[in-house]
């Protein structure tokens, strides 16, 4: 093997061991008009000033995608005085990442603040002459837009690895030591597809905690200090004055318990698999969230009656 990194200026750097921290990119729209000015993506700090400049009071902001990025942007745009419409393809917002009562709660919060949320709709083209003016959907409906923000997911940056012959499949494939199919090449963060011992499956995570911790683990392994990467992932999202805190992965759960009442603006959804707590979504409830981080890592098996009783602290529900 050459063990050499070639830069755009032609310079070459020889390595003994290489770490790929390539991140992820926003999934791009491919429909007609996708290249028009006024179509924004939110991925890095550099994207922010462009969007900020367009969020003028009274501006019509259309957001494509009702996931984290779409809804957080919608809330911010609304707070800045824009007229905001969110177009979501699925039948509810954040459908991939939260329970249906959590989706309902957030949709209600957004509508209460004046955000228009339209589900079950598919964008087919963008129209405009010098910049985007209109979004047209499959059912023929259309929405006038002064700016567009697209939040339709992320894809792992893996081309560089694939070109080097490193095995990739929805991310750069690494083992639990962060090592790729090339024993001298390691990878960490959003670009990886890695095994989780805790959940006994492969995962690709878009998560700051995973990026931090996997990078540290990769560094240790590169220094021949064998260390396994096995974290219970966690995520958060701020929308208006709501904080959504998520820990764990709910895939494959066979039971779901809601603690508390969404009408009181603070509740928690717990997921169990074979009696074991595997994931928690806490809405404006940091105590349940922090307790869940501990319980899930310990593979706790909560008492279902206690779990369903919001008067009993989650940490005491075992």
């Amino acid at each position, binding site marked *: 093997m050459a063990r050499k990194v070639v830069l755009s200026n032609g310079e070459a750097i020889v390595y003994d061991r290489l770490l790929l921290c390539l991140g992820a990119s926003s999934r791009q729209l491919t429909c007609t008009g996708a290249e028009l000015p006024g179509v924004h993506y939110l991925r890095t700090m550099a994207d922010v000033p462009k969007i900020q400049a367009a969020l003028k009071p009274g501006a019509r902001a259309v957001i494509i995608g009702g996931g984290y990025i779409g809804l957080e942007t919608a809330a911010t745009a609304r707070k800045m005085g824009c007229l905001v419409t969110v177009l979501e393809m699925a039948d509810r917002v954040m459908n991939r990442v939260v329970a249906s009562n959590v989706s309902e709660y957030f949709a209600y919060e957004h509508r209460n603040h004046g955000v228009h949320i339209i589900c079950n709709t598919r964008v087919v083209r963008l129209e405009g002459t010098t910049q985007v003016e209109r979004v047209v959907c499959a059912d023929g409906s259309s929405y006038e837009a002064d700016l567009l923000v697209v939040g339709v997911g992320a894809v792992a940056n893996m081309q560089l690895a694939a070109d080097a012959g490193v095995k990739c499949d929805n991310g750069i494939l690494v083992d639990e030591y962060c090592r790729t199919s090339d024993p001298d090449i390691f990878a960490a963060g959003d670009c990886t597809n890695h095994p989780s011992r805790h959940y006994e499956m492969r995962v690709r995570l878009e998560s*700051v905690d995973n990026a931090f911790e996997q990078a540290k683990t990769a560094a240790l392994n590169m220094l021949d200090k064998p260390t396994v990467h096995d974290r219970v992932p966690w995520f958060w999202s701020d929308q208006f004055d709501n904080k959504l*805190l998520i*820990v764990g992965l709910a895939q494959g759960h066979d039971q779901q318990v809601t603690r508390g009442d969404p009408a009181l603006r603070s509740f928690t959804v717990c997921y169990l698999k074979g009696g074991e707590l595997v994931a928690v979504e806490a809405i404006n409830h*940091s105590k349940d969230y*922090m*307790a869940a*981080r*501990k319980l899930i*890592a310990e593979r706790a098996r909560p008492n279902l009656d206690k779990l369903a009783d919001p008067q009993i602290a989650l940490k005491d529900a075992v």
Partner: protein
Amino acid sequence: MPRIVFLQPDGLTREIEAPAGITLMEAARLNHVAGVVAQCGGACACATCHVYIDPAWLGKLAPLEDMEEGMLETAWEPKANSRLSCQVTITAQLDGLAVSVPQRQGGG
């Protein structure tokens, strides 16, 4: 500018200056104070910027809100003078504030 004294987990004392208006976490990160991790960047979502405030100064800080209190409950070794440094804004009245950083960060 207000001066802040941090006692790091390694036992070293770091005296820094920070402008009023930024948070204690930002001041610590800008000055590379050891032990303040702040993974979530100041969103009150991770409990990795946990610090102990010198009790003499506690009363001069804005009070704990529910979200921060809940985060601290299962942070690493919480005490009565625990705060998340991302939720403490530096003001002129905090000139001389003394803070110590725990040996570890995070819950779970």
